[in-house]
């Protein structure tokens, strides 16, 4: 989030959508009022004494680190969780939603991060799923499409047609369909959980526009986001949670970004990125690609030296991840040459990649990195067990030390044998993924979005690790959408566009230069 704090000062706002104070003066009565809400899980309180008021026609931003309780609070409002203490009032009357469906019918809609859409059905079928208009016992497709068209038109969404298959839409458009679905229930309150998390920068504008229209229609919006810029662009009011406590609620105009961040984190941001060691000179070439390509990327030339961090920057879908998958044998290169430590290698499977002491921290740790129902230790041993079974027991003894070096709390390390990974925070989960690779002592480590969705402390641990790895002579290939991270951490930046390397920039380059190359504006 600090990254976006940097952005906030540099990048001009796309659109200023904060409600004009006169036009949207808070009406005296909130549509939703929470008082003293508390929630426990297994005897641990994750929310304590939360007060929250949502007013019609206002955007209320909910911010905090991972694990601060934002998602839990949203789920309380959505009827997924029932609070142990406190009251929820809708239009002044106390309510308790037994199920999310009851909340939906009462006009309280929630758009979660995970989409609940059927990819093989049309937009209209998804929006009206389970309550399609009927005519003589069968679905009245004409009315279904007419209703959906009206909804889309009302919201100014001209780019989406009701009969389009949802699976063929972009992620941003799918996000919009989720919101349209919420609107179709005549929702008066819509909460959105990091709606831009999966969106590329150029797609965010679509969402902004939609939020603005909903607000103008008098919908109360609860907006959860990690991105400061969005919060200041959209929110009228900001509430900060930290460790389940209600820290602050104030008009957006009265909270400076600095104060917001220090309230969230409880510390300041100065010197957030560890400095590049001055005496570290890149050594031998560890990984080299020459003319590598497959069906998704082509003509990739790159070198990463021992002690060097090379970043692959670019827009989502530009082919950065595909290069990583090519290197690691998930989607092998079919053309070109690849060498590791000067030796020509063929990596057709991840297994061969591990054998050449490559490591890949995948973009999506939950679906590609971890077996969530297994213990921390079992996950930290995944690679050892899979590829080096004979050395597994001996090398696994390093796991507690590695986790500790990644700044994992002692109690969590102590419970590694028993605790299932699914119950850890995002940051700790990511550290387990890192640990499973570190115990293999990789020579080349590819990090694909290593700080996505993790809290500030864990981010810092990842950056420190990158410095430690390079100091020990490993080569790091960093893939990231967070430009400040790319610019501050990388020695060299390769910008990927349309499956090819569009250019190279030195570390510390201006973010706008990277963006210009990535978008083809340069």
């Amino acid at each position, binding site marked *: 989030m600090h990254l976006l704090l940097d952005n906030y000062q540099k990048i001009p706002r796309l659109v200023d959508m904060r409600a004009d104070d006169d036009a949207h003066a808070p009406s005296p009565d909130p549509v939703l009022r929470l008082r003293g809400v508390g929630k426990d899980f297994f005897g641990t309180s994750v929310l304590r004494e939360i007060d929250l008021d949502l007013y019609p026609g206002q955007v209320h931003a909910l911010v905090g680190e991972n694990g601060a309780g934002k998602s839990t609070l949203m789920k309380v409002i959505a009827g997924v969780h029932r609070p142990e203490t406190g009251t929820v009032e809708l239009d002044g009357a106390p309510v308790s939603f037994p199920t999310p469906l009851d909340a939906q019918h009462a006009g309280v809609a929630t758009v979660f991060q995970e989409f609940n859409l059927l990819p093989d059905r049309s937009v209209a079928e998804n929006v009206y799923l389970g309550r399609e208009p009927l005519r003589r016992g069968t679905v009245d497709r004409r009315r279904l499409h007419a209703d959906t068209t009206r909804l889309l038109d009302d919201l100014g969404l001209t780019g989406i047609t009701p009969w389009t298959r949802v699976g063929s839409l972009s992620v941003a458009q799918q996000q919009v369909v989720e919101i349209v679905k919420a609107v179709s229930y005549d929702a008066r309150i819509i909460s959105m959980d990091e709606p831009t998390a999966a969106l590329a920068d150029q797609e965010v504008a679509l969402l902004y526009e939609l939020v603005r229209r909903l607000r103008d229609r008098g919908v109360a919006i609860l907006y959860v986001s990690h991105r400061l810029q969005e919060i200041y662009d959209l929110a009228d009011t900001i509430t900060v949670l930290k460790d389940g406590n209600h820290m602050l609620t104030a008009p957006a105009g009265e909270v400076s970004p600095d104060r917001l961040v220090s309230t969230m984190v409880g510390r300041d941001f100065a010197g957030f990125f560890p400095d590049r060691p001055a005496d570290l000179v890149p050594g031998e070439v560890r990984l080299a690609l020459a003319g590598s390509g497959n069906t998704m990327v082509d003509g990739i030339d790159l070198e990463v030296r021992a002690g060097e961090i090379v970043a692959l920057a670019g827009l989502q879908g530009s082919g950065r991840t595909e290069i990583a998958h090519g290197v690691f044998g998930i989607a092998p290169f079919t053309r070109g040459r690849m060498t590791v430590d000067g030796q020509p290698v063929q990596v057709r499977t991840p297994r061969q990649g591990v*054998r050449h002491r490559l490591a890949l921290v995948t973009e999506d740790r939950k679906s590609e990195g971890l077996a969530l*129902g297994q213990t921390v230790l079992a996950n930290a041993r995944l690679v050892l067990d899979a590829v080096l*079974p004979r050395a597994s027991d001996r090398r696994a003894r390093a796991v507690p030390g590695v986790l500790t070096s990644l700044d994992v709390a002692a*109690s969590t390390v102590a419970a590694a044998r028993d605790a299932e990974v699914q119950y850890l925070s995002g940051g700790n989960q990511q550290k387990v993924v890192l640990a499973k690779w570190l115990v293999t002592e990789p020579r080349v480590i590819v990090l694909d979005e290593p700080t996505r969705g993790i809290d500030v402390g864990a981010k810092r641990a990842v950056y420190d690790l990158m410095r430690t790895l390079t100091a020990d002579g490993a080569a790091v290939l960093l893939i990231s959408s967070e430009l400040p991270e790319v610019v501050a951490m990388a020695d060299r930046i390769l910008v990927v566009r349309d499956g090819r390397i569009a250019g190279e920039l030195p570390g510390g380059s201006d973010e706008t230069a990277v963006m210009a190359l990535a978008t083809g504006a340069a």
Partner: protein
Amino acid sequence: MTLTAETSRTARPWRERLLSGGSWTVLALLVLILAVIVVINPSFAEPMSLMAFAKKTAPLVVLAVGQYFVIVSGEFDLSVGSLVGAQVVIAARLMDGDEALTWPVLGLMLVFGLLVGLVNGLVTTLLRVPSFITTLGMMLVLFGAIRLWTGGAPTGALSESFRVLGRKGFPDVPGQFQVPYALLVALVVVGLAVVLMRRPFGRSLVAAGDNAVAVAYSGASVWWLRTRAFLLSSFLATVAAVLIGGFAGVTAQVGQGLEFMAITAVVLGGVALGGGRGTVIAAMVGALTLEALFTLFNQLALPSTVRPAVQGVILIAAVAYAARRRRT
């Protein structure tokens, strides 16, 4: 949330680690059923009756352990019942009571069993046919092929030495207390399985049932992991065939329905369908519970025809119970 909070709700006591998930419920159920049997028929608690019960249950325990490997990796093996039947019929016909052929035939059974497992595994993993279909097909193929080969009625006989494992025990004095060999075989199988699951192979297998992509991206060959699970299942079905052949002899019905008993036992033990969760011990307890239940039915003089219906209800109830637990 704080890190201490995180661990306090995740640390599992040793009891959980041993059995995992809802397995303590089934252990309680087993004790309850045994207690009811003893109340109805106090002589069941005598050592000789208990050993008889162990002897009868041993093959199911062995089959359940085999099924466990496959289920925990996220697959099914419906072919084990037919395989047991095929193995017994093949053995009887080939050796026809000839002691000298005992060992060669056992060797052949081993090869045949592993071949069936290999085909199950490779068709499932490499041809990507869901194991439910692969092993259902294998079940029909084995069933049909054996009928074809024997003309419908099994012929021949098992040699005496072949039948020792399933029938005898030590000390081998008729009418006296003895520990059945079948019990020892089952204990060895369970012991080795427990050890295997604590090895890299076992951990990778469970993890593959949990998230095959993550395991593959960690460098495992998931197809070979799962194929080995099918090999183990078929191998243990062969062991079970030796025990069952020894215990019950050769009939046309031998092995029938055992695949569903094994699956019911494993699921009853709280091993998750779809993989990734459950222990060998839990599968064993499930098998004991199922047999104990059938013993109880005998004590209550219920007709044996009631078994399939009860088994079906147990299967559905156990899965429903597990699904409910996971939701809340």
